[in-house]
């Protein structure tokens, strides 16, 4: 198999690239205090929320775009973006049957089971279309256990005490440029609260979809697992195929109280742009969780989409004996760029963390792992194990690793392993000889390479992610 042919064949078709013809209620382009007031008013928010947004906006105006990532980011005109777009609702929705049929078809196309299938799948879904949360399923079932799962806009109105207590606690608006922007303009997202000692009986799930043209999407997710509780949470994302670049700047905050456990899985499949690098989502996301004593937070991500990904789901291991995990598969093809990784901040004693990162680069893409393991002075007996593997397909792509270790305690034990490999012609010949096409062979080899991470996903999503990896590599090999 010639190297060239291997490369020529990777250019998969994006199958979520449709747009839906839904009337949207959008405001004009641009960002100002006035726009923020409009967003807040449209969402009928209390005064304190507006004040928080304005504070974030004022701070954002003093900040500069971060440039440290290994990314080539075209200039973004923040005044050329629509900051609020919502599917127009004809009237207040009483039941599922009243959801706009076109919107329902969109979610059907995405394979999101909004209705009866939900019961079978045992998944509760909050679907966010453009900027607003469309429908949250299974609320009643969850409510029996005292679990709150709703859109963040509703939570602001209905559970102001919880929101005031937790929002911005792990990711304050001063954290970084995109977090500040999000804090100012976020339009919706999900809120989840698991009460003390409750094991959430089903997977909770959020689907994000950008539909309207020229809009940015800024969701805010806040997840609180109270003492001794457990929840597994999944988010998925898709967007239509457009020639323009669209901005997505989300913030996810997780609070894992004493003895609680949270698993947060992401399958990110925003439109990556076409094979010439035209269009695609700019994905600048801040995700961070804080663990109290004996708490455990596990991030699993499968990143195949977006033109640019800038994302570092992190764990602040505040409490003694807390555990943080990060499992990642990041795949880039054509002209995609990804700079992704994690931060493990060890503050408590006997804290442990584990990082398994699998990068896959194909086409002319650039894929970077960036990680920080920090051990604070008081973090006696902290342990970290990091493994960063890169798989290269073809010879025009790049894989980069930027691991940083910053230890202030001599009792810390930190391990780092890294490998770089290529799919060999011998492997492809072997698979071909057994009757597999080269494309299937590459999909198989890549899935084998990523298996350790995919195994961490909930079963039904692992299958989905496997298919996604194979699809995203379509055309990479000949």
């Amino acid at each position, binding site marked *: 198999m010639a190297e060239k042919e291997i490369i020529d064949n990777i250019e998969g078709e994006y199958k979520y690239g449709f747009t839906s013809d839904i009337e949207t209620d959008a405001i004009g382009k641009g960002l100002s205090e006035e726009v923020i007031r409009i967003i807040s008013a449209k969402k009928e928010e209390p005064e304190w929320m507006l004040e928080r947004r304005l504070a974030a906006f004022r701070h954002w105006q003093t900040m500069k775009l971060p440039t440290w990532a290994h990314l080539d980011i075209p200039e973004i005109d923040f005044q050329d973006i629509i900051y609020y777009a919502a599917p127009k609702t004809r009237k207040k929705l009483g039941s599922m049957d009243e959801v706009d049929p076109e919107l329902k078809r969109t979610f059907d196309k995405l394979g999101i089971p909004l209705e009866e299938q939900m019961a079978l799948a045992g998944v509760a879904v909050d679907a966010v279309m453009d900027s607003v949360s469309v429908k949250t399923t299974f609320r009643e079932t969850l409510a029996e256990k005292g679990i709150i799962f709703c859109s963040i806009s509703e939570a602001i109105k209905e559970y102001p005490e919880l929101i005031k207590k937790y929002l911005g606690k792990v990711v304050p608006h001063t954290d970084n440029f995109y977090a500040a922007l999000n804090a100012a303009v976020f339009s919706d997202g999900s809120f989840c609260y698991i009460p003390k000692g409750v094991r959430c009986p089903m997977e909770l799930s959020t689907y994000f979809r950008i539909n309207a043209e020229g809009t940015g999407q800024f969701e805010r997710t806040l997840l609180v697992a109270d003492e001794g509780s457990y929840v597994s949470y999944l988010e998925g994302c898709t967007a239509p195929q457009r020639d323009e670049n669209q901005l997505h700047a989300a913030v996810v905050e997780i609070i894992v109280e004493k003895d609680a456990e949270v698993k947060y899985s992401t399958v990110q499949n925003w439109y990556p742009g076409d094979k010439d690098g035209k269009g695609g989502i700019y994905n600048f996301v801040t995700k961070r969780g804080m663990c109290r004593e004996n708490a455990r937070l596990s991030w699993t991500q499968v990143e195949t989409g977006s033109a640019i990904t800038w994302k570092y789901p992190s764990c602040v291991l505040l409490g003694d004996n807390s555990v943080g995990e990060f499992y990642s598969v990041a795949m880039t093809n054509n002209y995609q760029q990804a700079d992704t990784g994690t931060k493990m901040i060890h503050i408590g004693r006997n804290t442990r963390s584990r990082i398994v990162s699998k990068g896959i680069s194909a086409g002319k893409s650039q894929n970077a792992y960036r990680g920080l393991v920090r051990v604070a002075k008081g973090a006696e007996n902290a342990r970290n194990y990091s493994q960063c593997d890169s798989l290269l397909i073809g010879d025009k792509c790049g894989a980069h690793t930027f691991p940083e270790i910053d230890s202030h305690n001599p009792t810390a034990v930190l391990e780092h392993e890294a490998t770089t490999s290529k799919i060999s012609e*011998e492997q492809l010949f*072997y698979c071909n000889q*057994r*009757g*597999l*096409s080269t494309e299937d062979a590459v999909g198989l080899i890549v899935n084998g390479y990523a298996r350790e991470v995919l195994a961490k996903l909930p079963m039904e999503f692992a299958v989905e992610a496997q298919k996604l990896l194979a699809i995203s590599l379509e055309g990479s090999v000949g």
Partner: protein
Amino acid sequence: MLSVKNLCASIGEKQILRGINLEVRAGEVHAIMGPNGSGKSTLASVLAGNEKFTVTDGSVEFMGRNLLELSIEDRARMGLFLGFQYPVEIPGVTMANFMKMAVNEHRKFRGEEPLAAGEFLRMMREKSAVVELDSKLTNRAVNEGFSGGEKKKNEIFQMAMLEPKLAVLDETDSGLDIDALRIVATGVTKLHTAENATVVITHYQRLLDYIVPDYVHVLYKGRIIYTGDKTLALKLEKEGYDWLINDYKE
């Protein structure tokens, strides 16, 4: 079944096969022997379609088709199986998963439905018994961490699963201890029928004690210089190749 005429092939500038002629009919077993570097493995690779080699002349007909214009996978799906001398490892891909894809690709090619999971598992169990392959190995990644013997057994297991028309086994006996050799060789014999054919490439007569060949060919410097019956292998074992190749030495 297989008709090779004047096959010439090279790697880069180097000519390796210099006019191979070979006829294989259903039900036959052929052994190809010869000193190191004479082109035995190259012949196997070229038949399978390995693109490292360039065919410079000649023709190959397989099951009535021009083999040389088919892709590697189509050759395989038509029933050409290559038992590798050095099977590669594919980390993270389980044997079960790998075989399921392979078997179903073969079935699709023949216009058959994919096998149901239960049927497939039954088939895996049945076929792994042919070569006494520990069925636990089918849950491990393809050839990863397999011993030399296990890798070779695994090749024959795959042959059993795919039921090829023509199996070309490239030094399947190399690196095997006596017990493993017996198991692998008996496995191959069990799979032999009147409808299929086997070409074994080997250095040693001992394999042919189990897999009794109808023809033994001696390959030297890219040509088949001599063909005999099974007694030829015994003679070669005793006397070496000198008496045959003297005429061809420069």
